[in-house]
């Protein structure tokens, strides 16, 4: 069975050592997803797997036949950016931009997780309904590093999109 990436099907005829990240970049030609640390520590490779955010560097491509992956290319285009992409531009949520595709995929999934009622380690009541605060956003985005230190503006961009969705 093929893997579906941004709505298109790809055959997984690769060396089993190929990470999903390398498959996306090398075999599918989708270089929007970035390789930072390649060890799940930086989050630059974050993509959506069946709607959930994961580190694409820490999973093998061959494990994902039948799965559906969304990368930054599948979220928006220069002509029709995703609201998060537009907000990152407006708020200057980056400097070099290398971590940005991962930040945006991560933020997209994070807003979905909040909508689904998932709490975090900074939520007061683990069994309650989470509310989106800056503290929550910072905790929930801790898997995405930005070496340029654009965190304040990344949080501002996410807050703007979250408030627009509310």
């Amino acid at each position, binding site marked *: 069975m093929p893997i579906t990436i941004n709505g298109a099907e790809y055959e997984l005829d690769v060396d089993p050592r190929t990470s999903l990240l390398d498959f996306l970049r090398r075999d599918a030609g989708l270089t929007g997803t970035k390789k930072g640390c390649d060890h799940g520590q930086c989050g630059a490779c974050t993509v959506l797997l069946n709607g959930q955010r994961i580190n694409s560097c820490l*999973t093998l491509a061959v494990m994902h036949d039948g799965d559906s992956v969304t990368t930054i290319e599948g979220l928006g285009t220069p002509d029709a950016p995703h609201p998060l992409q537009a907000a990152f531009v407006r708020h200057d949520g980056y400097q070099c931009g290398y971590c940005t595709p991962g930040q945006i995929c991560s933020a997209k999934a994070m807003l979905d997780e909040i909508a*689904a009622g998932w709490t975090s380690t900074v939520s007061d009541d683990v069994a309650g309904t989470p509310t989106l605060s800056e503290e929550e956003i910072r905790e929930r985005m801790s898997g995405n590093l930005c070496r340029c230190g654009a965190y304040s503006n990344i949080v501002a961009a996410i807050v703007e999109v979250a408030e627009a969705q509310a």
Partner: protein
Amino acid sequence: MKPFDYQRAHGLGDAGQLLVAEGAKPIAGGTNLLDLMKLEVETPTALVDVNRLPLGGITPHGEGLHIGALVSNSACAADPRIRADYPVLARAILAGATFQLRNKATTGGNLCQRTRCYYFTDLAQACNKREPGTGCAAIGGFNRIHAILGASDACIATYPGDMAVALSALDATVEIHSAKGDKRMVPVRDFHRLPGDTPERDNVLEPGDVITGVLLPAPAGGTQLYRKVRDRASYAFALVSVAAVIHVEDGKIAKARLAFGGLAHKPWHDARVEALLEGEAPSDALFDHAAALLLEEARGQGSNDFKMPLTRRTLKAVLREATGGTL
């Protein structure tokens, strides 16, 4: 990464047969295993993908719950029954890693995650866990994250996880299927091992074993807390963590269940500490006695000596909070 054969298990029996082969390893979420394979700390000759086995879902089991081995850490922590009835477990899971990693990490795989000892992951260093008989560079080396309880002359590594610490406090059970097809139940408290002179074995799993689930006993009630002390506020392993389930009745501690992370080669559980607390009125002196008993056999390695006062203070803070005192 070294080459390996990729095999997909199509049933439990199939998985067991594939996994008895020398050099075979199961892969579920893969977040720890693939990381270590990239470093060539792990060099399996065959990877058996167990992800398509029917081991998902959280289902009622007696008065408790059965958590399938493939339930992701995220799904477990988001489950309304876990959040309401086993909050210490939800809190412990949410205190570990990141949302991305927890979406992939599984219940069974998380139990099997390996130490974060720097010498274990550095191929140039001696490590009895990675390569038995080579020695332990952490002893006399940089060892601020290392064990203060239950260590041996062969290994002072710690078990790094959070989830299993809560499972230990809750006295959960690991359900294991052997390659022969029989099922055995191992208390979480007995699942991980102390290093002794065989630190290469983290736990009691045998070749061909597959973890199929974790059983939670009936909801424990009480006040359930998980406090984790770490070097940064998010996405870091515990220096010390405490999972606590505490019942206070008529001004006395009626029941205390405690487990500790970051202290040893396994989630640390000491029934003597619980017995010392039970039946007593909470007080600073009582909590000091509990900490002293817990740390009676503790031994620092130099850089990790701070874990002894840190453990005492963290335990006391948790007990004060759980018994209604102020922080």
